[in-house]
């Protein structure tokens, strides 16, 4: 630019105007091409990074134990996998371009500026530290707002997840307005925090502009004096061409500072997301395979020895307290007890969904911690209280239990779980499509399908955690009868609220406040256990009243 003015325009040389003009056009085209290519590759790199991040996080989440998931909450994991990864993707796309282009541009422009006029270029050296301090101050103020926003996003997702999952309850209880108000409160909180952070960040751009304009005024004033003093002669000092070049480089330097400030802004905004992603990636699963694990479960015998359990180390009270229990292979055990008596907590220790806090749990005579997790869970099938079906056909859902199961095996398992009769009434039978969460089948049908799925594993231990609660009494009895006849060697543990569901068991365990209150057969417990007798009598009375 400087040569174009000094040797082309000032000297009225058309040849020089063409020469330097052509060079300028060439550089402009090169800038355009490299700009397009850098944008393209930056987009590819950032989307690739986010895909890899998401995959690694997802892989780690799959290895999480229940307690790992409890620590984060499922809503927070969803936010981290979606919003946080997108933030990092956007930030990275900008950072890889600007964090390289900005400093390169600044160093080049500074070097050339100093070669033109050392004195005038000193302005830049004064300006840069001043700007750096101001930017640092802005970033420090902004950071806490964004940290708060992402925590609130977790709450927002949690509310939405809860509402969508429980939309039937929300509607049947007329709680739509309450749900809207709850969402509004969280939404307002995000609005306030995000606005506060963004408003503080809005100071960045005008601050840069003020600096840029201030520098241009200073260069104009000092440059004008230097040109007049030199008589616009390059041999004696600054020329008009050089002043134009200096102003152009000043703009480039300030542009590069602007880029760096944007990089800093993006880093500040995405730092919180980065930390939250790192937490997921660094989280070590609580329950892992031991070295040289046992790969086969011998039989379905179970032993609890002085077992204590708490969900959180901060908890004041033990969920399970000093449990001692022996279950023989092939035995049918009923577990009964009031809400919160830790029935589910007890059985969750068997397939290592949680680990005992103290004591030892053994299956087939070996500590569960010594087993290969996959082998243990293949041998211990558990039908949870809130079991899920996934979108797909009935057959596909059943094959979650055993992916190699034949059609005959599917039918056999469904017959055992008394699911076959209702499947056969469906137009597409085993190919009937199940909606996400199994919302197009009734609660009882869903429970029977989940039991059939567990049976396909041919487990050594089968745990039914209140999983026939929605099944009518007749079908419940049919299922128990089928279990007794068809899978006599499988240890069956049945948690139930109804005494009728467990009264035929070989042994019934009465849980109360995290401890085994009593155990024995139905008749024994009626004589010895006050709790069991009260539960039985109240249910009998209810039955008579109903009749």
């Amino acid at each position, binding site marked *: 630019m400087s040569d174009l003015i000094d040797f082309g325009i000032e000297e009225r040389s058309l040849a020089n105007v063409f020469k330097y003009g052509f060079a300028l056009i060439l550089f402009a085209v090169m800038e355009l091409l490299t700009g397009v290519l850098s944008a393209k590759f930056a987009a590819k790199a950032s989307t690739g990074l986010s895909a890899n991040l998401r995959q690694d996080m997802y892989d780690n989440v799959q290895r999480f134990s229940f307690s790992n998931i409890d620590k984060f909450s499922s809503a927070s994991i969803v936010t981290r996998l979606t919003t946080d990864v997108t933030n990092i993707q956007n930030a990275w796309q900008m950072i890889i371009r600007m964090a390289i282009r900005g400093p390169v541009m600044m160093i080049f422009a500074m070097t050339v500026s100093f070669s033109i006029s050392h004195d005038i270029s000193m302005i830049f050296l004064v300006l840069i530290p001043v700007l750096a301090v101001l930017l640092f101050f802005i970033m420090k103020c902004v950071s806490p707002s964004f940290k708060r926003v992402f925590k609130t996003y977790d709450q927002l997702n949690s509310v939405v997840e809860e509402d969508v999952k429980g939309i039937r309850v929300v509607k049947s209880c007329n709680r739509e307005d309450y749900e809207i108000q709850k969402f509004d409160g969280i*939404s307002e909180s995000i*609005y306030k925090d995000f606005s506060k952070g963004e*408003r503080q960040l*809005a100071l960045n751009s005008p601050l840069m502009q*003020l600096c840029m304009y201030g520098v241009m*005024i200073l260069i104009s004033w000092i440059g*004008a004096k230097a040109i007049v003093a030199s*008589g616009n002669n390059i041999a004696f000092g600054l020329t*008009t061409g050089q002043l134009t070049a200096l102003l152009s480089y000043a703009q480039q330097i300030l542009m590069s500072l602007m880029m760096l400030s944007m990089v800093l802004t993006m880093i500040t905004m995405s730092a919180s997301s980065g930390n939250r992603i790192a937490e997921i990636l660094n989280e070590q699963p609580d329950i892992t395979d031991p070295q040289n694990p046992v790969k086969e479960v011998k039989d379905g015998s179970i032993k609890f020895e002085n077992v204590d359990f708490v969900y959180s180390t901060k908890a004041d009270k033990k969920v399970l307290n000093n449990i001692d229990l022996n279950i023989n292979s092939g035995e049918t055990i009923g577990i009964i007890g009031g809400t919160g008596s830790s029935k589910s907590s007890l059985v969750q220790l068997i397939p290592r969904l949680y680990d005992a806090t103290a004591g030892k749990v053994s299956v087939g005579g070996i500590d569960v911690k010594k087993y290969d997790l996959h082998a243990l869970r293949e041998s211990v099938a558990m039908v949870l209280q809130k079991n899920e079906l996934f979108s797909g056909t009935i057959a596909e859902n059943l094959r979650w239990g055993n992916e190699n199961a034949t059609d005959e095996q599917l039918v056999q398992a469904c017959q055992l779980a008394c699911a076959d009769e209702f499947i056969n009434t469906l137009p597409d039978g085993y190919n009937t499509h199940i909606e996400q969460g199994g*919302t197009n089948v009734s609660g009882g049908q869903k429970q029977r399908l989940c039991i059939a799925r567990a049976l396909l594993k041919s487990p050594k231990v089968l745990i039914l955690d209140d999983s026939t609660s929605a099944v009518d009494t007749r079908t419940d009895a049919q299922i128990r009868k089928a279990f007794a006849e068809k899978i006599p060697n499988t240890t069956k543990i049945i948690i139930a609220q109804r005494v009728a569901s467990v009264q035929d068991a070989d042994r019934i365990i009465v849980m109360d406040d995290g401890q085994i209150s009593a155990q024995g057969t139905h008749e024994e417990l009626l004589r010895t256990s006050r709790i069991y007798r009260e539960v039985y009598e109240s249910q009998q009375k209810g039955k008579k009243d109903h009749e």
Partner: protein
Amino acid sequence: MSENMKQKKSTSFDMQTLKRLLSYMKKYKTTMIVVVICIILSAVASAASSMFLQSLIDIYIVPLLGQDHPVFTGLLHALIIIGVIYFVGAMGTWIYNRLMVTIAQGTLKRSVMRCLRRCKHFQSVTLTAIHMVRS
């Protein structure tokens, strides 16, 4: 349905969507006017910067070349004036950036809340519709 009719239908849908999106900004009508004024001020300052560079050499430097006692008062006045223009431009940038945050975040929040409250696209839709969206 002819190609033209399809196109017409698609355009009318787009216009309706645009109208609906703009309706969320109704509350910010005055703020939007202030934002537009501030953007103009900021753009004027930026344009003035380029124009000033042109006049700096031709009007304020070249006439002083070869003078024994050059007087820089004219240049000083011009620099003060352009300094004021720059300052107004930077303030314009700051104000519109701040106001745009309020409008963008507020519109986002209002659009979601209005969907929940008035359009009732979530809480009041039938369970069948929710199943359809899920599937």
